[in-house]
């Protein structure tokens, strides 16, 4: 009897895990979009890119005002200088990307079948550097990689997020990102989903909680009163610290996989860099 129960529960676990795996990335994306649509039928899909701002006309108006003359424009110009300055061999970043880097960032992250890992836009910029004999930037360094992406991503403004998950390796990386999103962590034992799952649009003390679809589209962001530059992965790191977890490495595989999952769930939504966020 005991044995039978044991076998049955194992079968149950198998059925459960098979079920979890059988949700395709596209089903996962639709599920998360539909959840927001059911809760907030008046918010347009294309406005999901504004995240928390989509819930407050006031905050959105302030954002629009600020974006008319961004106070951090000189920072983006520094990024432009980095992008345009040729490498010592005379070549440019633009030579590494189809279309000179225009309308490409929405294809990242992608799963590289030869490297067997996820490649983010930041990694592609570093690949371009090393291919041309330059040292790679640290992904966590906002004064180099941060500024560079603050400009380079503007070249893809308006491009629709277009992340693809095809093949077993890609699916495994997507799954790993998905697990990260739903797994509780840190001393406070919050997962990303604890707040950005069922509580989207609700107010955490004073701030609205943004919806998952669209979250990966507006990066990097200049945040708060001092316009500190945050790439998406720096935001992951800060968020992990808020729930009192030891953050993962910015540019490391865990966050890359999370960004892969996260970006896929923003598919079909327009990119914009570099923006203001609180």
């Amino acid at each position: 009897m005991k044995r039978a129960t044991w076998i049955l529960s194992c079968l149950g676990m198998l059925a459960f895990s098979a079920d979890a795996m059988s949700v395709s990335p596209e089903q996962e994306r639709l599920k998360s979009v539909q959840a927001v649509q059911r809760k907030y039928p008046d918010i347009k899909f294309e406005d999901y890119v504004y995240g928390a701002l989509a819930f407050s006309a006031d905050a959105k108006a302030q954002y629009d005002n600020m974006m008319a003359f961004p106070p951090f424009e000189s920072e983006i110009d520094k990024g432009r200088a980095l992008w345009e300055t040729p490498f010592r061999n005379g070549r440019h970043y633009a030579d590494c990307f189809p279309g000179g880097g225009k309308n490409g960032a929405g294809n990242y992250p992608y799963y590289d079948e030869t490297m067997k890992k996820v490649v983010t836009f930041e990694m592609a910029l570093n690949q371009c550097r090393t291919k041309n004999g330059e040292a790679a930037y640290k992904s966590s360094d906002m004064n180099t990689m941060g500024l560079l992406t603050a400009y380079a991503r503007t070249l893809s403004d308006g491009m629709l997020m277009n992340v693809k998950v095809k093949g077993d390796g890609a699916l495994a990386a997507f799954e790993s990102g998905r697990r990260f999103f739903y797994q509780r962590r840190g001393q406070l034992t919050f997962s990303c989903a604890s707040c950005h799952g069922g509580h989207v649009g609700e107010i955490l003390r004073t701030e609205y909680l943004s919806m998952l679809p669209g979250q990966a589209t507006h990066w990097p962001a200049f945040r708060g009163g001092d316009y500190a530059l945050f790439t998406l992965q720096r935001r992951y790191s800060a968020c992990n610290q808020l729930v009192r977890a030891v953050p993962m490495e910015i540019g490391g595989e865990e966050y890359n996989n999370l960004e892969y999952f996260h970006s896929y769930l923003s598919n079909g939504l327009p990119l914009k860099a570099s923006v203001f966020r609180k």
Partner: protein
Amino acid sequence: MEKPIAIVTAASLSLLLAATFMSAARAAAPGPEPSGQELAFDNRKGNCLACHAMPGDPKAVTSTNVAPPLVGMAARFPDRSKLYGQIWMPRAATPTRPCRHSARTGF
């Protein structure tokens, strides 16, 4: 009509704060012990206001609507130990809710 509600709210808040205080006492922090209100309001401590409004307390400044507002606590938790348990380990009663375990976080 207003008055009994106010009394219930005040009573319930003090009950809640007292319960928070009890768990604080266990932490055995050095220095003067924070009041229940400090624990409940401070975002580095209990941070209750992140998710729970306290409509009965004008000093509880928050716009949150994530979790049930803390009103009528005396009526909702006639058994004081249940209230203590809820603060100590919220997920025992509501496993899917975000609210964290005071027990694990040391508050």
